[in-house]
């Protein structure tokens, strides 16, 4: 009852908003989930675009967290009041893709703006993630990130570790974490944000392991999870063992663990490159490294898969409005804009030209480590295991995985049991979601 009232309230709010939209200038509604510094970027971009021409006006509206924004968009669509552009986080990609008829592929929108859409201008790893199996790009990559390793140089020095060369493989990371804990240099050696995104989805891609059947869901929706075997079990059992004496500390399901790193409690952190802004702001003496891998994995390190969010266009609007959306996306693709976005936020540039320009400007020489998320993603041509993970209900599957991890880290079950349960419950949830 409560939630129903909530949805009705949302719809009512939007009706009020949209009635004021009938002016000569075509208004483009952009719903997003960016807070803090990233919200300022959204505001600035919209302002710059609006000042650069007089036909269209982009109106950014903050809609809460990623899931809240997605839900607001869905509720609005159901009430026939959808915005033109909505920012949807990576795991919502499957949800949006399944909604054929509700969304308009970006490739189509861009060609309506008169311009030709050239896929080759964009970073291949990112485009592949946001495209249909036949290659049609469905959404516009706005903020993409990739998980990397952060370490505290002061603690490394105290523990007698090499401050310039962070550990590269998981066994090396665990050794370093133990040494940090034993030497008392910090109360916890290692932590990680997003155990699902980093520890499973990217772990699979980076170590060239299968996450699920159907090319991890990219080739079809009827996916069976494969995460309860081999290195997945080894890895999580390692984490569970280290958690017993706090050498590994769990921070939470999303990015809470970043706080443990910023406060100096934990010395090593695996986290999204998008978290760099906060690390920079904290003034910590930090270093960056590649996401660790297992040396015994064949072909590792392979490549990482993008996280972050992309911009989706809802169907059912006027042609003139789509032309405006196209103009805005073309504006966003400009090299200067992408270059700036990349350098201030830690998110990846989405076009190759912006990457080349940043490289040429000497930015990576001055800021060592900032190129890592890009080289990680582009270093090798992706395999069937490393193009991405797509499930129609990935948010739900992640919840299930998190619940099992929490029980495992609390010592209630082994890694094998946790992953077996996650697979069993996850598969059942997938079957329900695809309607079987």
């Amino acid at each position, binding site marked *: 009852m409560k939630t129903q009232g909530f949805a*009705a309230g949302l719809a009512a709010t939007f009706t009020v908003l949209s009635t004021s939209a009938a002016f000569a200038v075509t208004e483009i509604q952009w719903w997003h989930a960016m807070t803090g510094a990233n919200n300022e970027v959204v505001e600035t971009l919209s302002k710059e675009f609006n000042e650069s021409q007089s036909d269209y006006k982009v109106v950014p509206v903050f809609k809460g967290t990623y899931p809240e924004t997605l839900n607001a968009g869905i509720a609005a669509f159901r009430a026939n009041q959808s915005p033109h552009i909505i920012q949807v986080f990576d795991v919502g990609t499957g949800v949006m893709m399944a909604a054929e008829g509700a969304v308009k592929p970006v490739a189509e929108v861009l060609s309506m703006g008169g311009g030709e859409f050239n896929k080759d201008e964009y970073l291949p790893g990112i485009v592949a993630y946001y495209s249909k199996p036949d290659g049609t790009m469905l959404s516009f990559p706005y903020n993409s990130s990739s998980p990397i390793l952060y370490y505290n140089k002061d603690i490394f020095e105290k523990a007698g570790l090499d401050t310039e060369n962070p550990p590269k493989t998981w066994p090396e990371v665990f050794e370093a974490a133990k040494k940090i804990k034993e030497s008392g240099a910090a109360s916890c050696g290692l932590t990680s944000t997003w155990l699902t995104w980093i520890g499973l989805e990217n772990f699979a891609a980076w170590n060239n392991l299968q996450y699920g059947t159907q090319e991890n869901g990219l080739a079809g929706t009827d996916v069976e999870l494969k995460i309860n075997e081999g290195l997945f079990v080894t890895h999580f059992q390692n984490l569970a063992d280290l958690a017993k004496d706090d050498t590994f500390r769990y921070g939470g399901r999303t990015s809470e663990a970043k706080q443990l790193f910023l406060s100096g409690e934990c010395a090593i952190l695996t986290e999204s490159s998008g978290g760099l802004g906060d690390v920079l702001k904290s003034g910590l003496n930090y270093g960056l490294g590649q996401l660790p891998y297992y040396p015994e994995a064949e072909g590792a390190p392979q490549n990482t898969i993008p996280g972050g969010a992309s911009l989706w266009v809802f169907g059912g609007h006027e042609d003139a409005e789509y032309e405006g959306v196209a103009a805005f996306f073309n504006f966003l693709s400009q090299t200067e804009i992408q270059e700036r976005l990349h350098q201030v936020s830690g998110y990846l540039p989405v076009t190759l030209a912006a990457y080349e320009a940043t490289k040429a400007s000497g930015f990576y020489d001055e800021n060592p480590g900032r190129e890592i998320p890009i080289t990680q993603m582009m270093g090798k041509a992706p395999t069937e295991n490393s193009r991405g993970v797509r499930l129609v209900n990935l948010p739900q599957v992640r919840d299930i995985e998190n619940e099992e991890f*929490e029980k495992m880290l609390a010592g209630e079950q082994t890694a094998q049991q946790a992953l077996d349960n996650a697979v069993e419950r996850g598969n059942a949830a997938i079957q329900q979601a695809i309607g079987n």
Partner: protein
Amino acid sequence: MSPRVTFPNKILPYLLIAPQLVIVGIFFYWPASQALYQSVLREDPFGLRSTFVGLANFRRVLAEPNYINALQNTAVFSIAVAFVAMSIALLLAVMADKIIRGRGIYRTMLIWPYAIAPAIAGMVWLFMFNPAMGTFAYMLRSSGYQWDPLLRGDQAMVLVIAAAAWKQISYNFLFFVAGLQAIPKTLIEAAAIDGAGETKRFWTIIFPLLAPTTFFLLVINTTYAFFDTFGIIHAVTGGGPGKATETLVYKVYNDGFVNLILGDSAAQSVILMVIVIALTAIQFRYVEKKVHYG
């Protein structure tokens, strides 16, 4: 004087209650009917395809072990919140009633937390007890206690109960203070003259005479624990760790708004509606009989 207010105009009374009726209609009956409708459908999130499935959603929900888990959590949570919030409030009210000097200040300060939104109350407790940044969490850990509500379900439950109860104490306090003031002083004085001690006076006179207030608060606190604590749970634990603090309301939200399984979510809200109607009916039917309205 007639005990009933009568209006000479036939339409005016309806006009006067119309705004309330409209609000109840829009914010309760309409969404509730939507929930009933959706609970027999199976739909994709965008509402592009929907099929009538009869009671299949209810069958699936009731067979789900997680639903039983949420039911147990809700029972533990509601009983604990109602008991803690009411007993502490009663204790404080009795204490505050005895104070003569500075009574107003004490009362104002005790009522204060009620003005805080549930989500903020949750954040306050989270900031104090979150293992990553909480001051008290740090103190607990350094005193050797294994405090980790992120992984230990029982501790997480204690934390959300504490936050939810704390916020409700003020409200209960307010009503208990009012209830205490309504008890004739002569009764208490007479008992004192007869030689009844303070404890005896409380249990034999004050507590029974407070029964209407207590009963009213019991209903209010149960509904509060069922519905209004969503913000606290959302901010503090998000239903975790595992599913240790997932209550019925939280599961409705999670299945509907995170997992986007609208049919199941709607079925759960319908069940929840039935539970609350039943609980309130039982409370009024049986508990009220034992209540002494003085």
